């Protein structure tokens, strides 16, 4: 109804303006504005989007575009004077768009509204955060860049948060599948069913290296990387350290753990102490062998390379997150003839470890190593769970690629849209 009205109005305006040389006039004159602009809260999101919808102006606007203007209209109970600014644009064939807003403004941000708001009244409330409502305008811009008069929303719109972010549903499902697979295999292993996993080259070398250090009467150096304890690689390194120090305790070898972060030092102390206890040698534990050097990456490296040359450890373990220091350590270790075993998930450092160390655990193998070393069936079960994840990747990849290929070969918009949905909605 409304649309019809505008169409007829415009038509009569044109009729008034002169003879029906419509094309010539349309280029000169302002385009018609869109109508029925509404702003509603985007459902099931984090309250940062309002959905705008409008009806296309009479005669359409396919060649042009729309500009979206926004103003803060209400802060708490305060009405704010209007000051519309362009915040976004939409293509001419669109009739809706999601725009980003905030559901709350902090007091400091409210201050920015300057003299458009009675700040004294805001101060007096003593509040810290205020709900904020918006008004929108939309103008159509034709191909020549001429703007129409604006259409405005009738009501102040507020964005609200919902208890669940529907955009992350796919992520939730994937998380449940992955975690579920790991848990399933761990439980299966607990129930006593045998778990078969392949060997990882280099893991037997761990015990061999410890044994050799004992024979030579020289210490073992264990470097847990240079990241703090909030890094998963460092945590994984702790579980490998647990195994190394347990073996060392059995062989009566000395393990030295210099760390670059003090939190890693305290955690490593706990780990090693527990390992010595498990090996039945709690008396042999010496916490002074696990110490902090410095947080500075190269200060730590300077210390390590000096210490390696002076104390000549027989075996060196580099397990954790490494950066540039990987090669300095590996080359120094090589020059003193130590057995070197490395493990990291830092892809950039892998070539150097692969080249300069005796054994290297690559990426995921590094995380798997702790499971192998512990030898407990539950830990091995978790590896099977990870494999489910890989199967998932392969399946989705193959399906996605086949769909994309089909879409491209058949030039079918429907399939292409399905691929876009898979990529941009399900996999983000």
């Amino acid at each position, binding site marked *: 109804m409304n649309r019809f009205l505008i169409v007829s109005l415009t038509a009569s305006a044109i009729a008034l303006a002169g003879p029906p040389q419509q094309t010539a006039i349309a280029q000169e004159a302002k385009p018609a504005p869109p109508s029925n602009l509404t702003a509603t809260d985007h459902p099931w999101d984090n309250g940062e989007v309002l959905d705008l919808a409008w009806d296309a102006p009479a005669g359409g606007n396919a060649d042009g575009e729309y500009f979206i203007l926004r103003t803060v209209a209400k802060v708490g109970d305060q009405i704010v004077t209007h000051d519309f600014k362009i915040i976004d644009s939409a293509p001419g064939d669109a009739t809706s768009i999601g725009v980003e807003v905030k559901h709350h403004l902090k*007091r*400091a941000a409210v*201050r920015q509204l300057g003299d458009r708001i009675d700040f004294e009244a805001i101060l007096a409330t003593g509040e*810290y955060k205020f709900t904020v409502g918006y008004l929108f305008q939309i103008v159509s811009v034709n191909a020549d860049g001429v703007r129409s008069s604006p259409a405005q929303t009738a009501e102040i719109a507020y964005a609200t948060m919902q208890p669940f972010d529907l955009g992350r549903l796919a*992520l939730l499902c*994937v*998380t449940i599948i*992955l*975690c579920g697979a790991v848990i399933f295999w761990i439980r299966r292993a607990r129930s006593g069913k045998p778990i078969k*996993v*392949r*060997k990882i080259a280099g893991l037997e070398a761990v015990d061999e290296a410890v044994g050799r250090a004992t024979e030579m009467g020289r210490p073992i150096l264990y470097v847990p990387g240079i990241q703090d*304890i*909030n*890094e*998963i690689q460092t*945590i994984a390194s702790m579980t490998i350290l647990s195994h190394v120090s347990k073996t060392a305790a059995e062989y009566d070898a000395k393990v030295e753990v210099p760390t670059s972060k003090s*939190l890693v030092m*305290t*955690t490593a102390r*706990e780990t090693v102490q527990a390992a010595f206890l498990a090996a039945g040698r709690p008396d042999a534990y010496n916490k002074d062998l696990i110490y902090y*050097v410095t*947080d*500075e990456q*190269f*200060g730590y490296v*300077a*210390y390590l390379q*000096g210490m390696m040359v002076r104390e000549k450890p027989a075996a060196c373990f580099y397990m954790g997150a490494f950066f540039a220091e990987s090669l300095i350590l590996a080359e120094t270790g090589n020059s003193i003839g130590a057995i070197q075993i490395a493990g990291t998930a830092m*892809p*950039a450092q*892998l*070539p*150097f470890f692969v*080249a300069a160390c005796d054994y290297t655990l*690559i*990426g*995921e*193998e590094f995380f*798997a190593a702790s499971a192998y070393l512990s030898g407990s069936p539950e830990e091995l079960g978790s*590896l*099977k769970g*990870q494999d489910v994840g*890989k199967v998932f*990747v*392969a399946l*989705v*990849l*193959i399906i*996605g*690629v086949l769909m*994309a*290929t089909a879409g*491209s*070969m058949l030039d079918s918009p429907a399939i292409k849209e399905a*691929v876009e949905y*898979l*990529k941009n909605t399900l*996999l*983000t």
Partner: protein
Amino acid sequence: MNKSNRLWVILFIIGAVLVAGRMLISQSLIGKAYVQAVPVNADEENEDHKWTLYEQSSQTKFNEAVLEDPNQTKYLFSFSRTIGVWIAALLTIFVLSFLIRDNPLYKFAESIFIGISAAYWMVVGFWSTVVPNLFGKLSPDMVRDWAMPGLGIDERVELMYIVPLVLGLMLLWILSPKGGWISRWPTAFIIGVFCGLRLITFIHADFLSQIRNGIAPLWMVDSSGSFDFWESLRNVFLIIGVLSCLVYFFFSFEHKGIIGKTAKLGIWFMMITFGAAFGYTVMGRIALLAIRLEFLFDDWLWLIDPTGKRLEAVISMLGLF
């Protein structure tokens, strides 16, 4: 004096003679640093609120200024920064001497570095984390009156930040003779929180997004709408590469038969990846050495002058011979 000590003495003497020779040729001290005085006038009324900042400058500017006005005070020779350049140069050489063998000079540099850097990070941690993010949250007024007058006046007390304070204190409990086990609580908290956080963000950011980036048609058409063989081949290689590498990481099967062959292909892809990483890394490392040597030749020995810092005729290596 044993053989290695003699070698060190000889190296030291050669170095000293070369540096002295360099100084003779230029007929003035090398490694000099100059500054530009920038007066700061924070408060017209109060004399205490006026001071001078010294910014890095160059001999060229200094000489130009002196030629114009011999009594100028804007550009100055800086004694402390000249010393600094010499110390930096010597420390650079001390560290590099480790390449010949471990020696007392390296140990000296190493000890200084450990001490300085540990303290450096403590200071940075205090002023840029503890003050704004702990004190600033728990007592914004106090921090504003003391060290951060620019702190937003709307900042309010955020009692939530008592949690890291308490956890921190529990952590430090380890220093006390008894009850050190309490420090396991904050450790467990950190590890738990970050395990949860990393689990979800890795699945979100790396796992899903990499699958997403991997989806591409194997049949590519170019802008004219006809089949593009090379672009298609590229995508075929990409998908084969990703899948075969994934097979390598499979733990459930031994690498035998078809799986073994696919895994092998995966290793080949990874080896090319490693080769690329190696090539690029070498590139970066050499640039790092270049900047150190440029410092020695330019700022210290004044052998080269790529940025026009000096008026004095530059003696290039070619000129020496």
